[in-house]
């Protein structure tokens, strides 16, 4: 008898568990939760000064306003005014000093957001201005850092540079990026008995919100519960930042003894919260006449903003990816976390990796133009080997390199060589429109580089009717984590995925979790959930063997049924029997990633369990009169190992690529000379829209993908890596700019139409100057 295959098992492209709720508007986000009676609404008053001493804050006028129930400043926080995730002293409300325009100074809870906002305007704040530091260069000059620098090296870069037949120096500016999650930061804090606090938070890191709220309230962690069913996007922006939002709501709720909701509107969200770090890369590179890189000395300086937040780990990851796919024999990498009077920059999809990778891709592109080769040839020439030339600057040997295969496949399927010829012909016609083409690879390290974070827990209950409730430490921000984990559990029990109830993430069920970050959600929580399911399954097998008097080896789960020798019962029947026989039908599961370690003192180890790989080709057309451009075609090939859900994974690849493209093209953050961010809403900050999708978009999951590392069903993490496929768009633009300039040109990121036009103008001007001086 052919066994029925379950619905929604592993490798099936089932729909997102909430798809139906999304399209009907029934999916509940934090701001949609029914408010308990008496709920107050909070407004946060932000600093108008980039750097100033807080001489005094007078809130008497605020308190007197109608509807106001509570006002708090730093002085009102009962516990410790600190949400620093790595380093201490990162205040939620400014204490004694303000360090950026947008910093929370005080918060008001009132009967409506309108009343709270109006009341807050009555605060009288006396600032004594101090000189601000806004730019990376200023901070570097002042040696003003939020964390100590970190250095990685192998060999002797200085000596090798001196001996290199060709050498060049330069710098690249890499812009930041706002997360622009469609759902802004939001939290609802509800006081409980015993002074406890329940916090609904739009967060990727419920344990952090729990811990920080407890710290602010001066409570043990067990007194605070944090819950989140889903976020309307996170992208890293809800890893540490929600602790600020939830913390303010919780302190107000504590003071008012009433529930308090704090939802930032878009402008306040963008003014207040951290973003992707902008970077300045300075390099000194040696290479041979073939374009083989011999040595590199690279400085990566990030604008951290006013506090450390996660900046040190982010800059570490930038250094970890400053090799990308290339072997650099003698190398020295230094990362700086520059302290500036701006928003405290934070995690964002890729976590520094994209910036490090863009720097090395820029260097490779420059080398190619210096030696007069197609950049793809130079890329391939410098690729890591599989058994030799395969050690990274942090001394981890790369054991899973499949770049050669991926590159060959995409080079062929994208007709790269033929299109390169066509483009050269087009660019020779004298049109004001120039075309550009680029192929870029990526290698992205998977695991938290802070090794202890690589752990996860899950909790599974099987109820007496055979229905299953699943909980784990991961959070759902749209990436499809919940459905993937449900598929893993369905596969273990061999039941249809609808039989697995996905429940909201809460610190009350699974404790001490890591952020859903570093692309690790499925790798970690999938393993933990599988472990929990296997524990219950083991008990059920033992019970079935006893009950049906067969050896345990004769008990199998398949197609919603359990087969015990000659007997065949439904999963629900077996569970019912097991319940009556007093078998425990609930289990936790736990997972810790094996093998990973990193010693920061020596900058060496194995920070990553494995690497994800992908390749991309992009073609653009550029208007050399205005700098306007269009991505006419993009071909992506990405390795997700054995996919747990190809539909979800494809969505991550495409969505990541477009988000990366936005970062490198139209998304520009702009501060004025006083340090005020002027791009704080979609009217001024431009993420891609539907028309920006490449007209011809060919995306494939690598069919032969299989993770050599023992990951959940041999899949690979997919959250962050595809963002960096968008490097192809940036270098295609640079290719067109170079074609328009008749030689080399310099292009910083983001490549807005303005930067593209000015790059062409500058390159032409310097070529003319060069020609004039040669005469």
């Amino acid at each position: 008898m052919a066994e029925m295959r379950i619905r929604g098992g592993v490798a099936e492209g089932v729909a997102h568990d909430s798809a139906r709720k999304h399209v009907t508007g029934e999916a509940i986000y934090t701001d949609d939760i029914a408010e308990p009676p008496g709920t107050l609404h909070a407004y946060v008053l932000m600093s108008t000064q980039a750097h100033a001493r807080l001489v005094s804050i007078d809130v008497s006028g605020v308190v007197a306003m109608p509807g106001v129930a509570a006002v708090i400043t730093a002085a009102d926080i009962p516990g410790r005014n600190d949400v620093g995730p790595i380093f201490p002293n990162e205040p939620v409300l400014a204490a004694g000093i303000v360090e950026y325009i947008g910093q929370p100074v005080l918060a008001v809870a009132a009967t409506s957001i309108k009343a709270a906002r109006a009341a807050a305007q009555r605060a009288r704040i006396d600032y004594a201005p101090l000189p601000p530091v806004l730019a990376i260069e200023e901070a570097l000059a002042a040696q003003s850092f939020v964390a100590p620098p970190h250095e990685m090296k192998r060999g002797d870069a200085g000596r090798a540079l001196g001996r290199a037949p060709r050498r060049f120096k330069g710098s690249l500016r890499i812009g930041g990026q706002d997360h622009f999650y469609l759902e802004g930061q939001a939290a609802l804090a509800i006081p409980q008995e015993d002074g406890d606090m329940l916090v609904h938070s739009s967060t990727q890191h419920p344990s952090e919100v729990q811990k920080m709220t407890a710290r602010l309230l001066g409570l043990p962690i067990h007194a605070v519960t944090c819950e989140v069913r889903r976020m309307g996007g996170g992208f890293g922006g809800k890893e540490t930042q929600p602790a600020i939002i939830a913390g303010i709501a919780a302190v107000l709720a504590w003071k008012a003894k009433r529930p308090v909701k704090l939802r930032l509107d878009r402008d306040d969200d963008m003014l207040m919260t951290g973003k992707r770090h902008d970077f300045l890369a300075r390099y000194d590179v040696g290479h041979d006449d073939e374009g083989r890189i011999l040595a590199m000395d690279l400085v990566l300086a990030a604008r951290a903003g006013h506090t450390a937040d996660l900046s040190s780990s982010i800059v570490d990851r930038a250094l970890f990816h400053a090799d990308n796919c290339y072997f650099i024999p003698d190398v020295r990498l230094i990362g700086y976390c520059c302290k500036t009077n701006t928003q405290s920059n934070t995690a964002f999809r890729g976590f520094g990796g994209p910036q490090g990778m863009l720097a090395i891709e820029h260097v490779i592109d420059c080398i190619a133009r210096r030696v007069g080769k197609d950049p793809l040839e130079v890329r391939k020439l410098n690729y890591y080997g599989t058994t030799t030339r395969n050690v990274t600057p942090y001394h981890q040997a790369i054991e899973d390199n499949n770049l050669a295969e991926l590159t060959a496949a995409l080079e062929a399927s994208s007709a790269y060589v033929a299109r390169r010829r066509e483009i050269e012909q087009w660019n020779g016609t004298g049109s004001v429109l120039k075309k550009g083409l680029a192929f870029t690879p990526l290698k992205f390290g998977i695991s938290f580089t802070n090794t202890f974070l690589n752990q996860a827990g899950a909790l599974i209950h099987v109820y007496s009717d055979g229905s299953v409730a699943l909980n784990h430490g991961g959070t759902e921000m749209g990436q499809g984590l919940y459905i993937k984990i449900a598929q893993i559990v369905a596969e273990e029990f061999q039941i249809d995925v609808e039989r697995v109830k996905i429940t909201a993430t809460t610190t009350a069920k699974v404790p001490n979790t890591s952020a859903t970050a570093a692309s690790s959600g499925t790798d970690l929580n999938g393993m933990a959930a599988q472990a929990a399911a296997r524990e219950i399954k083991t008990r059920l097998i033992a019970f079935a063997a006893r009950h049906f008097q067969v050896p345990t080896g004769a008990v199998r789960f398949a197609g919603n049924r359990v087969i015990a020798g000659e007997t065949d019962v439904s999963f629900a029947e077996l569970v019912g029997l097991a319940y009556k026989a007093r078998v425990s039908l609930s289990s936790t599961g736990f997972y810790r990633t094996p093998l990973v370690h990193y010693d920061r003192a020596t900058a060496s180890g194995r920070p990553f369990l494995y690497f994800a790989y992908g390749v991309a080709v992009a073609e653009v057309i550029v208007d050399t009169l205005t700098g306007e451009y269009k991505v006419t075609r993009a071909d992506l090939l990405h390795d997700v190992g054995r996919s747990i859900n190809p539909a979800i994974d494809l969505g991550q690849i495409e969505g990541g690529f477009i988000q990366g493209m936005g970062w490198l093209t139209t998304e520009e953050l702009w501060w004025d000379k006083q340090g005020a961010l002027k791009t704080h809403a979609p009217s001024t900050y431009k993420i891609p829209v539907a028309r920006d999708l490449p007209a011809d978009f060919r995306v494939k999951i690598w069919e032969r993908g299989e993770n050599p590392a023992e990951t959940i069903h041999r899949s690979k993490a997919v959250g962050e890596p595809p963002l960096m496929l968008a490097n192809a768009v940036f270098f295609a633009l640079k290719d067109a700019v170079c074609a328009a300039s008749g030689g080399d040109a310099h292009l910083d990121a983001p490549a807005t139409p303005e930067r593209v036009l000015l790059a062409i103008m500058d390159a032409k001007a310097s070529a003319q100057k060069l020609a004039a001086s040669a005469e």
Partner: protein
Amino acid sequence: MADAVRFLLNDEERAVEGFDPTTTVLEYLRGAERLYGTKEGCAEGDCGACTVVITEPDGDGGLRYEAVNSCIRFLPTLDGRQLITVEDLKAADGTLHPVQQAMVEAHASQCGFCTPGFVMSMFALWHANKSPSREETLQALAGNLCRCTGYRPILDACQRMVAAGEATDSFDDRAQETAERLASLRRLVGLRYVTGGKEFLAPRTLAELTEIMARHPTAQVLAGGTDFGLWVTKQHREFERLVWLGEVAELRRLAASDTHLEIGAGVTWTNALPALERHWPSFGELVRRFASPPIRNSATIGGNIANASPIGDGPPPLIALGATVVLAGPGGERDLPLEDFFHDYRRTDLKAGEIVVRLRVPLPAPGLEFACYKLSKRLDQDISAACAAFAVRVQGGLVVEARFAFGGMAATPKRARLAEAALAGRPWTQGSVEAAVAALARDFTPLDDMRASARYRMASAQNLLRRFYLETSGTAPARIAYG
């Protein structure tokens, strides 16, 4: 005697009172109605998460479905209309609307927060066009931001929605009944909605409007509200008395004579688009890039002018085309060339009690070459860093008239008089154009701001004049095709 605001919330009649007149439809839905499907993403009409559909009789016994941004639409403007939200699409038995079904099948939602807005934009598209092309789909979705999917699956969903081949939905089935119910809500005399000492007036005729303005010359006039909405949602301003132009029949008229196109100040950009596109294809393309369909469904020509933003996209082409603006006030009507209407940053020739009533745009004269160009970081739904419009008439090889107007280059939309003068009477050649390009540098001293640097604004403005010359004199493409 004050009125309640009466409208249909899907198929239930509502008569609401007691809300501040500047309560947004979004606030009303999420507040009083406890309908949480419609989301706030930006409160400025730029992300589309709040998209709802408003239906009105189309004049032919049917209904017209228009997507609008509920975050900046004021509640009293629903009077006499039907409001449809994402909650209304699913059938009572749980069957999804073809639009919703297509979104699920195409894996077109990830975080889902933007999804209700996309669904509503697609619902409006589906009612307007059962087989939209990819280009029409891109235009229809220009006002909806998605941060997760990268849009490919959403575009696929639009194709699936077409392929599903459903000819009608339950809204079509009820269309006649809905039209009748809306007809019964129609007022003979304009709405007068009063609450908490604040007044919202929606006159239905020009006479009614003139009378109100004579009585209340300082009343705040509200047109499409797509910029005005932000004065409320972002600047938190309060208004004692609002006079809404959206119901004034005369202002919604668009008529062409042999010599002129007359556009009522209350004509929306959506409704103006076909006529503008027919006479000046380049103007049509600019309008398609002007904000997004939900904004253009509300925003009016008159509002774009009276608002006097230096970066509005309407004035440059209208000035270059020699449009005249007609104002009406207590003293009757007067007109003046549009370029003279703008005095300084956000300051105009409007006197107290006066309003913009229509635009008169001369139809193209023989020999007229016209083009307008918009430069922005993003192609669709972005505010111009610079907007340029060029009109030249060449006779016997010589330029007999040149009118160049720019937005984003000065405190007002402004003509480039020196560049025009450099060309007057000169041959239409590259040499003359280069002289005009040089003169343009003396016409303007643009600013550095978040949209562009002064250097880019000037360099690109000069190059746009070069582009105009290339397009009028050559056959090779001088720019990237929009569609």
